[in-house]
């Protein structure tokens, strides 16, 4: 089977080079035969990469340990689900996975994009072919999953136990889907530049793609947080680790892009900015893939060091030069069509939103690469850690949260003071009341208090928007409130879906404030002994050590330690944390022991128990107890965000042919008007 996979990759290499050439020429000359060929190449690449991927999956499922990759990441006693996840659990496989997903997206883009954007599609095929060419080359020449050993081991080394977790089965593919799907909006941007048709068309064509990749990224990042939280055992979900940052960076620029495209669609402004943003988002997604693989920055999430780093560095460099030239040569075509009319307008609020998001991205990037920069400049590595990122990003994050409430309510062009007063009186009132109540109940952390006050403010503005919309429908059409709500959302999906996404973001922020009140305690307890912690809510939580038990499971030996928990003297449950020693099918130890934290979650707080080991083989156990308030809100925020994204993306919500025509006409009139004004 690996021969077939190998063959498919070589064919894909040749074909992607072909696709790049015919795509470009087809777009340039408008020759139907070339255009047809470019489109078919995209579908063929999808077929070839699917074959290559299947070949690897079959090798994994059949325990073909003669294949280096299978021997390195799988073993006989690995559960089947994890054998499948071993496909993207290692370096070489994950690159193949990237390429495969890319060809799926590229084919889908050719398939679903409407006819009126057909002029862009050959160029899009060219761009996706070039990116495919890159990933297939890396897979073939840098890290080939089909390489064979010159002998066949009896068993594989198995998958790292930390990857043997349901979150890990879905977290990397989600993140990859996010990373990879940015290629599509990027390809359309390049296509628009190449074709010199820089009207709003390409933005309409990628509307759903942009949101889709943003939702994938959000879900991927959130699942990554969840995995780190339940699996790494340090009691947190975000450590500003380079790989976490790498996933956060394109998320930030894509968030900025999602907002700034609206200004271009409505007002024809920020065209250059949009092209640059989508270019940077793509570069950052490649950069993220790069730093998880190159080992240039050490991280808990990273793969081993390997030569593929050089490939990525060259790709980024050449791509950057090309994009810079392309944008520069079309600079005049990207002229703005309108001027800002007032500092109090939707446009201005979007401008600040973008500035803050990009500022945040820049600071995160700077902090991530600072060790390298300081070494180059001063000869000594200086590292920055979570204190730096928190110090910079918390204020920016709070400013963004405030804008989340303010922006959507400000009118386009120019807002009047009276209108603003009407919009914001009630939400500000709600926020002040929430702030007063929290302060009176003894919340002393300034940032947390501010975050919750702003969260209340934003929630109130969103609530008010829904309330007004539903009320208006109820009065005008005499609809029942539930029906009015459904129709309101259904007929303005982009707007109300957006509000739901904002609500999800607010929920994340509420979860983040909990981190300010995290409480930890380490203790060594004999059976029957207990310790008591003061929870941030002022309750006494008592942990009593019950004992340690040992048993054997499918592919591991387990030591499990249990504690009984009481809240203010009332028993609320038992938590069992495990120390696992994974073994291969001959019973030999593989990997270092791993820790399974025990977690009891509710909306108020998480109780997080880690069994760190026993004292000299007795039943005296060393524990780390953590009280993590509001963590569940982070996961809840993720769920709300996905819901909002789905509402917005649901088929049929996009511009109909007529609507698009109208938009285009408006755009032409406006252009004519500006020209008249200029002359």
């Amino acid at each position, binding site marked *: 089977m690996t021969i077939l996979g190998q063959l498919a990759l070589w064919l894909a290499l040749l074909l992607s080079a072909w696709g790049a050439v015919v795509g470009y020429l087809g777009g340039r000359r408008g020759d139907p035969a070339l255009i047809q060929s470019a489109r078919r190449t995209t579908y063929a690449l999808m077929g070839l990469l699917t074959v290559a991927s299947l070949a690897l999956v079959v090798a994994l499922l059949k325990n073909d340990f003669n294949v280096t990759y299978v021997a390195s990441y799988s073993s006989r006693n690995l559960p089947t689900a994890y054998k499948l996840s071993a496909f993207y659990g*290692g370096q070489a496989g994950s690159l193949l996975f990237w390429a495969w997903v890319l060809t799926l997206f590229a084919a889908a883009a050719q398939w679903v994009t409407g006819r009126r954007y057909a002029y862009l599609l050959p160029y899009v095929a060219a761009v996706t072919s070039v990116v495919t060419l890159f990933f297939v080359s890396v897979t073939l020449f840098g890290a080939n999953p089909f390489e064979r050993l010159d002998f066949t081991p009896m068993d594989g080394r198995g998958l790292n136990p930390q990857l043997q977790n349901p979150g890990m089965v879905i977290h990397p593919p989600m993140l990859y889907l996010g990373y990879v799907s940015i290629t599509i909006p990027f390809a359309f941007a390049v296509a628009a530049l190449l074709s010199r048709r820089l009207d709003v068309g390409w933005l309409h064509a990628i509307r759903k793609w942009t949101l889709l990749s943003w939702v994938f990224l959000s879900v991927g990042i959130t699942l990554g947080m969840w995995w780190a939280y339940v699996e790494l055992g340090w009691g947190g979900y975000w450590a500003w680790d380079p790989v976490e940052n790498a996933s956060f960076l394109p998320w930030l620029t894509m968030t900025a892009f999602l907002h700034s495209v609206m200004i271009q669609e409505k007002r024809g402004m920020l065209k250059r900015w949009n092209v640059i943003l989508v270019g940077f988002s793509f570069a950052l997604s490649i950069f993220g893939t790069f730093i998880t693989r190159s080992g240039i920055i050490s991280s808990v999430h990273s*793969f081993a060091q390997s030569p593929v780093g050089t490939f990525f560095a060259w790709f980024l460099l050449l791509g950057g030069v090309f994009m810079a030239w392309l944008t520069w040569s079309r600079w005049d075509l990207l002229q703005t069509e309108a*001027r800002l009319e007032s500092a109090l307008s939707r446009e201005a609020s979007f401008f600040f939103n973008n500035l803050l998001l990009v500022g945040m991205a820049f600071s995160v990037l700077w902090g991530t690469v600072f060790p390298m920069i300081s070494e180059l400049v001063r000869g*000594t590595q200086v590292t920055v850690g979570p204190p*730096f990122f928190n110090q*910079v990003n918390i204020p920016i994050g709070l400013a963004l949260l405030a804008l989340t409430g303010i922006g959507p309510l400000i009118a386009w062009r120019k807002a009047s003071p009276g209108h603003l007063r009407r919009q914001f009186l009630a939400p500000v009132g709600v926020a002040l009341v929430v702030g007063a109540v929290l302060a009176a109940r003894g919340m002393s952390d300034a940032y947390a208090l501010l975050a919750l006050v702003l969260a209340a403010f934003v929630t109130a503005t969103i609530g008010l928007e829904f309330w007004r919309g539903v009320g208006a429908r109820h009065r005008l059409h005499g609809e029942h409130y539930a029906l009015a709500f459904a129709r309101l959302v259904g007929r303005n999906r982009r707007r109300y879906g957006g509000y739901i996404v904002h609500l999800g973001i607010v929920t994340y922020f509420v979860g983040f404030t909990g981190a300010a009140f995290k409480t930890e305690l380490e203790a060594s307890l004999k059976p029957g002994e207990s310790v008591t912690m003061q929870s941030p809510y002022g309750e006494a939580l008592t942990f009593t050590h019950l004992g340690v038990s040992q048993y054997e499971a499918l592919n591991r030996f387990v030591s499990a330690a249990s504690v009984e928990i009481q809240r203010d003297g009332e028993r609320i449950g038992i938590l069992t944390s495990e120390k696992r020693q994974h073994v291969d099918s001959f019973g030999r130890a593989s990997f270092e022991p791993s820790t399974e934290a025990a977690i009891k979650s509710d909306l108020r707080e998480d109780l997080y128990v880690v069994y760190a080991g026993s004292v000299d083989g007795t039943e005296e156990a060393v524990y780390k107890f953590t009280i993590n308030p509001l963590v569940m809100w982070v996961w809840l925020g993720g769920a709300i965000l996905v819901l909002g994204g789905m509402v917005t993306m649901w088929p049929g919500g996009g511009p109909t042919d007529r609507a698009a025509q109208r938009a285009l006409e408006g755009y032409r009139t406006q252009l004519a008007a500006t020209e008249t004004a200029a002359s």
Partner: protein
Amino acid sequence: MRASHKVLLAGALVVGTVGFLMASGIKETGVYFLTPTELAARVSADPSFHDVGVKMGAKVVTGTIERDVGTQTIRFAVTDGQVTYPVVYRGLAPDTFTDDVEVVVEGRLQPDGTFRATTLLAKCGSRYEAVPEA
């Protein structure tokens, strides 16, 4: 003042604030990352360097790990092949902390030559690779 000027001014203010936050953040929270050899050179050049918190990246010397589970104290030695420092760390060690792994310790070098670590990270370059066969 024109609207666009107002907005640009406010934008410059935002950019300035972000820049200031970054500069002060690096100044206040940046930590030197040194090898044992570099640390030894720094300290001999300037004895007051003992009071500066640093991160040190080195390998654990095989056979030197002593764990006292009761007091949760771990003693071990790290080396970069040239200079070796004894390290004392109080707390829970990560799962990957064993003989010969790369670690990053953050803390201060005491005048008696012991490195007192407040954090201990086992930096396993091949964390997602299997342990090589012995």
